C-alpha cells in the first residue's frame, strides 16, 4: 500500500466516489510527492479520470479528504481555492481548448486573468510556451478547429503551463500522438520537471511514458490503489492485472 510520505503535494485519504449505485472509488488513499512524476494506470473504466477530476474538484465525493499543497479544498474559502487553482495546470483528455479563441488567446487567457502584464510580454510568453511544447509560433492565430489532434494536445499543455504551475495534471497526454511526438512529449515533461521543479500527475496508458518519464507508478483497481512504487516494483509484482500489464506482449516490446 501507499507508504506515508512527508509533505506530500497531494494527499488523498479514504476517498469514496459514487455515481448512482456504482461505487467508482472506494476508500482510496494516495500520496504524490513534491517534484515527482507519478504515472497513474489502471484498466479502462477503473476511475482514473474520476480520481483526477475529484482531486481537481470537478466531481463531488461521498466522503474522504483531499489536500493539495496542504490545503483542504472543501474547507478553503473562495480566495483560498483560487490561490490553489493558480498553482496547478490541467491538461484534459480532449484538450478542452476554448473553441472560439485562437491559440494565442487560449494560452494568454489564464495569464491575462491572473497577472497584469503588457501585451508584449503576453505575446512573448505565448511564443515561449508554444516553442517549449514543440510547436511553431505561426500556429498562434489559428483556431482549435483548424489544428490536428496532436497539436491540440500540445496547445492544451502550453495553456496548462501558461502560469508556470507547480503541479500539472495530465489526462492521457500522449494518446493520439505519433510515437516520436509522444517520445518528445515525455522528454518535455521530464525537462519541465527538472527545470521548474514541476510535480506531474499523469494518467496514461503509454508504457513508453511509464518507462521513460515516470518516477513512480500507482495502479488503480477496484476503486483502490492496488500498488504504488517504481517500475521495478511493478514488474516484480504478482498481482494478476499488473503481471499482464507489465509482462504482456506490448510491455516486452517496450522493455526489450
Amino acid at each position, binding site marked *: 500500500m501507499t507508504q506515508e510520505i512527508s509533505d506530500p503535494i497531494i494527499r488523498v485519504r479514504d476517498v469514496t466516489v459514487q455515481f448512482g449505485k456504482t461505487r467508482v472509488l472506494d476508500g482510496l488513499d494516495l500520496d504524490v510527492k513534491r517534484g515527482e512524476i507519478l504515472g497513474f494506470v489502471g484498466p479502462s473504466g477503473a476511475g482514473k479520470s474520476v480520481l483526477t477530476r475529484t482531486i481537481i474538484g470537478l466531481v463531488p465525493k461521498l466522503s474522504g479528504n483531499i489536500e493539495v499543497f496542504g490545503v483542504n479544498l472543501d474547507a478553503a474559502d473562495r480566495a483560498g481555492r483560487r490561490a490553489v487553482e493558480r498553482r496547478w495546470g490541467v491538461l484534459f483528455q480532449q484538450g478542452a481548448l476554448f*473553441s472560439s479563441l485562437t491559440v494565442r488567446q487560449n494560452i494568454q487567457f489564464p495569464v491575462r486573468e491572473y497577472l497584469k*502584464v503588457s501585451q508584449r510580454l503576453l505575446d*512573448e*510568453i505565448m*511564443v*515561449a510556451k508554444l*516553442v*517549449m511544447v514543440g510547436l511553431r509560433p505561426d500556429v498562434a492565430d489559428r*483556431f482549435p478547429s483548424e489544428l490536428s489532434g496532436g497539436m491540440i494536445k500540445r496547445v492544451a499543455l502550453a495553456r496548462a503551463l501558461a502560469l*508556470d504551475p507547480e503541479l500539472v495534471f495530465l489526462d492521457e497526454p500522449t494518446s493520439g500522438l505519433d510515437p516520436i511526438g509522444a517520445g518528445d512529449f515525455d522528454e518535455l515533461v521530464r525537462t519541465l520537471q527538472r527545470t521548474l521543479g514541476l510535480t506531474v500527475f499523469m494518467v496514461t496508458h503509454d508504457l513508453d511514458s511509464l518507462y521513460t518519464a515516470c518516477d513512480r507508478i500507482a495502479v488503480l483497481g477496484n476503486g483502490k490503489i492496488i500498488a504504488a512504487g517504481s517500475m521495478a516494483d511493478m514488474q516484480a509484482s504478482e498481482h494478476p492485472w499488473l503481471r499482464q500489464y507489465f509482462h504482456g506482449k506490448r510491455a516486452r516490446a517496450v522493455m526489450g
Partner: protein
Amino acid sequence: MTGSPDLQRSGEGNALSLRATGAWTARFAPSLERLVADAEKLAGKTKDVSIDVSQVSKLDTFGAWLIERLRRSFTTATVEARIDGLSANYASLVDEVRRVSMAPDGDATTVTITGMLGQIGLSVAGILGTVAALIDMLGAVIVASGRVLIHPRSFRLTSTIHHLEQVCWRAVPIVVLITFLIGCIIAQQGIFHFRRFGADIFVVDMLGVLVLREIGVLLVAIMIAGRSGSAYTAELGSMKMREEIDALRTMGFDPIEVLILPRMLALVIALPILAFLGDIAALYGGGLVAWFYGGVDPEAFLLRLRDAISIDHFTVGLLKAPVMAAVIGIVACVEGLAVQGSAESLGRHTTSSVVKGIFFVIVMDGVFAIFFAAVGM
C-alpha cells in the same frame, strides 16, 4: 526563499554588470517587467554586459524569458551580453527560452474604403449564397422524400414521432397561452376604439378575419421558429461539431434522410395542428373579452362570427401553415449544417436560424397575401 525580485546595476565605463536577485517567477511578472524595461534603456551605451543570476532564488519561464530578453536587448553586432552564474538546474530552462524567436504580431485590421466596399459586396454575395443554400436543401429534402416513397422501409417513423412530440405536443401549452392572450388584446383594443363609433359588434368581424387569416398562423410560425428552429440548428450544429454527421455518412447513411427528413416532416405536421389550436385559443380569448369587457354575450358573438367569416378565411390560414413549417425547417437545417468547429459559430448560426426563419415566414406571408388576393380567396 521567495523574496521579491530586484535587478541591481553596477560597473562603470564600458562595463555594465546587472545582478538579478530574488524570485523571478510568474507571480512577480508585472514588477519584473518594469525592472527589465528600465534596464533595457541602458542598451547600446556599453561594450561589455554581464547579467549575474547566481542570486536568483527561483526561476520559471517568465523570469527566464525576461532575462533572455534583457540579454538580447544588450546584444548587438559588437557586444555579446553574457549570463553568468546560471545554476545547472536553470540552464536548460534558459536554453529552452533561447530557442524562442519572436513571431510576427497578430493580424492588424485596417479600415479602408475598398475594404468597406468589399464587405458590402461580400454581404450581397452572402445573401445570394443563403438563397442558393436554401434551394439546395429543399432539393435534397425532396430527393430524400422521393427515395423514402420508393423504399418506405427506410422511413424513420420512431424519429419522426419523437420530433413530433418535441415540436408539437410540448409546444401546445405555450402556443395556446400566447394566442389566447393575443386574442384578448385584439378584442380589447377593437372594442375600445370601435365603441366611439358605436360599432362594438364589428370587433367580432375583425377578430375572426384577423386571427384566422393572419395572426393565428403567423404568430404560431414565429413562435415555432424561435422554439423549434433554434433547437434543430443547435442539435444539428453540435452533431456537426463532433463529426457525428461525418460518421453517419461514412456508415453509408444519408444525413438528410436520417436527420433532416424526420425533423422536417414533424414540423410540417405540427404547424397546422398548432395553428388550428392557436386560432381556437385566440377566438376564445377574444370572445371572453367581448363578453366581459364589451358586453357581447356568447350567443351574439357566435352568431356574428358565423356571418362575418367564411370557411375560406380558415382555409387560407391553415394552407399557409405547412409551407411556413417547411421554410422554418429548411432554414434551421441549413444553418445547423453550416456550423463550424467553434462554440461561437454554433451560437451565431442558431441566432441566424431564428432571424432568417422569422424573416422568411413573413416574406412567405406576403407572397401568400398576393396569391390569395389573385385567386379571390
